[in-house]
């Protein structure tokens, strides 16, 4: 709730905002304390819960990272993508293949997964970011489906519709991480690095430019920025972090299916972003948690018809939560601010 107060509203703001640095320093210290507590809580979790719960939490963290990477596109840059799972899946397959054929030593598979995600996003993104709005939605959907079809067709490499299985467990210093708790710490560490990376991107001058493009592209262009170049880089970065999440996913579940690259996964993660509140970075984390819990808790009871429930949540969310959970928090903040006049 306290991570990104400046991006909940302000539709007209263009260009980087200037804030006096002492306020910023104090604000940062104030914000850091709850974050530190949260981190300690997250780190202590495996000491108290069953392995299954630790596993579920690991999955939530991975999907949260995936969702935040999509939020960089949807919320910060204003590019709603329906094919983001393509880069997640490419990362997952890369990490799986690297682990099988070369090494599963800790940072190598996920780093290569992130690189593969970024390269794939760059290879397809130059086309996608030429367009905006609904065209972008359709193009990314088409690209995602193509990657999905490739994953299914290239049976020699990906294992086809059987999936890529037999991925060895992640190793740290030669020791395989087989305990759910240890694996959770590994996921937590990498995912936190990912969150910090995405937060830094969103709060850098580069991120401010992206928000400017989202809010008023013609104005940014007339100020001398090249929206195409910024959107393209944002797309590649988002793809890279999605690939990182995919790499973690392959290490955690140790099997990669073509569905992980497909439309349903893309829709799922877009739902997480919209449900949480696009543009806030923390909202999609909550959204991902809800989506994973709903799918994994109720999905098995519905005989694998989890997407049915997902569709219902989607429809309800569009009507009831136009700005996601973040919108609810934003309402509270605005009400509190209202008596004091314009903030």
């Amino acid at each position, binding site marked *: 709730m306290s991570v990104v107060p400046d991006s909940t509203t302000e539709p007209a703001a263009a260009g980087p905002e200037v804030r006096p640095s002492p306020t910023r320093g104090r604000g940062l210290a104030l914000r850091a304390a709850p974050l530190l507590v949260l981190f300690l809580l997250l780190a202590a979790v495996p000491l108290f819960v069953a392995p299954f719960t630790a596993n579920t939490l690991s999955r939530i963290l991975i999907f949260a990272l995936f969702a935040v990477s999509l939020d960089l596109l949807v919320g910060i840059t204003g590019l709603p993508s329906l094919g983001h799972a393509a880069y997640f899946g490419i990362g997952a397959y890369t990490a799986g293949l690297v682990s099988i054929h070369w090494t599963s030593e800790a940072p190598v598979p996920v780093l290569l997964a992130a690189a593969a995600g970024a390269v794939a996003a760059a290879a397809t993104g130059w086309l996608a970011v030429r367009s905006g709005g*609904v065209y972008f939605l359709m193009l990314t959907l088409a690209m995602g489906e193509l990657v999905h079809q490739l994953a299914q067709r290239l049976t020699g490499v990906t294992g086809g519709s059987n999936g890529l299985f037999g991925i060895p467990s992640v190793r740290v210093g030669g020791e395989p991480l087989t305990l759910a708790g240890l694996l959770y710490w590994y996921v937590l560490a990498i995912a936190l690095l990912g969150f910090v990376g995405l937060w830094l991107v969103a709060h850098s001058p580069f991120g401010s430019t992206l928000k400017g493009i989202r809010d008023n592209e013609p104005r940014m262009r007339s100020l001398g920025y090249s929206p195409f170049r910024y959107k393209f880089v944002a797309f590649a970065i988002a793809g890279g972090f999605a690939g990182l999440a995919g790499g973690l996913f392959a290490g955690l579940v140790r099997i990669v299916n073509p569905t992980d690259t497909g439309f349903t996964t893309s829709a799922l993660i877009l739902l997480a972003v919209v449900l949480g509140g696009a543009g806030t970075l923390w909202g999609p984390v909550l959204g991902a948690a809800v989506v994973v819990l709903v799918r994994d808790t109720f999905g098995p009871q519905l005989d694998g018809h989890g997407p049915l429930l997902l569709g219902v949540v989607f429809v309800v969310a*569009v009507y009831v939560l136009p700005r996601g959970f973040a919108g609810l928090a934003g309402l509270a903040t605005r009400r509190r601010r209202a008596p004091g006049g314009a903030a």
Partner: protein
Amino acid sequence: MAGWFDANLVSILNGFAIGSLLFILAVGLSIVFGMMDVLNLAHGAFFLVGSYLAVTFVAGESWAGFFTALGVAALVGLLAGGALAGLTEPLARRPILDQALLTLGISLIVAEVLSIIYGNDVFSVPEPPALAGSVSVAGSAYPTYRLMLIAVGLVLALVVWLVVEKTSIGALVRASVADREMVSAMGIDNRKVKFAVLGVGSLLATVAGVLAAPVYGARPGLDKTILLLALVVIVIGGLGSIRGALVGALVIGQVESLGRALVPDYASFILFGTLALVLIVRPRGLFAGKVAH
């Protein structure tokens, strides 16, 4: 050249048959977006409803079954489109993305309900009895049913063209694509138009589903494959343009058919390559209808 043409005649004809189907599908999607700014991501799911209706009424056994399936599919399509129009009405003032998300949710629900009813098996539907055989086209045997599909596509294209260019309803359609606010300022109830447009658009999707059943069968996941092809068609042709839908459908039909026949491993790349090529030359599609998107 002549030899190559003869050798690939069947693939080329197949391309026209797929193109016909894609046109029927894409023209609905394109008009709905062009006129009403609703990107209907449930279009593929509606198509699949039609295919499963063909399975239910055993459309291949007799003409009665085939026409029952077509009639029921048309009715279901109209109702579904009307319902969708009602559902999107509260979102009319919200960004286009919200409506797209709503239809995305609906497409997930419809696809899952279908898989609950029909299971995950792959159904095949035979052609109606009189069209089950094949005829000789320039020396190669070709299924009669697919020739009929090509004819239906051509007739439909002609009908749509006549309606849009020569009737007062067509004038309304063109005016709505160009400037919806002005049309409603002239005293035409926007909501009624929306019901009609979404109804007809969805009807085209379910009918295309029945017509396609003897070619594609019915299986889970078909909705996404079809939606993808239809989206590629209207992106290539230009949103809201009927001529674009026709040209895009014919191009993608050939890419799908000839591509799969000549270089089966790279068919997906060729599809993507065509899309990329068109968008590099014409970022808004070949026959861009609207400027503002």
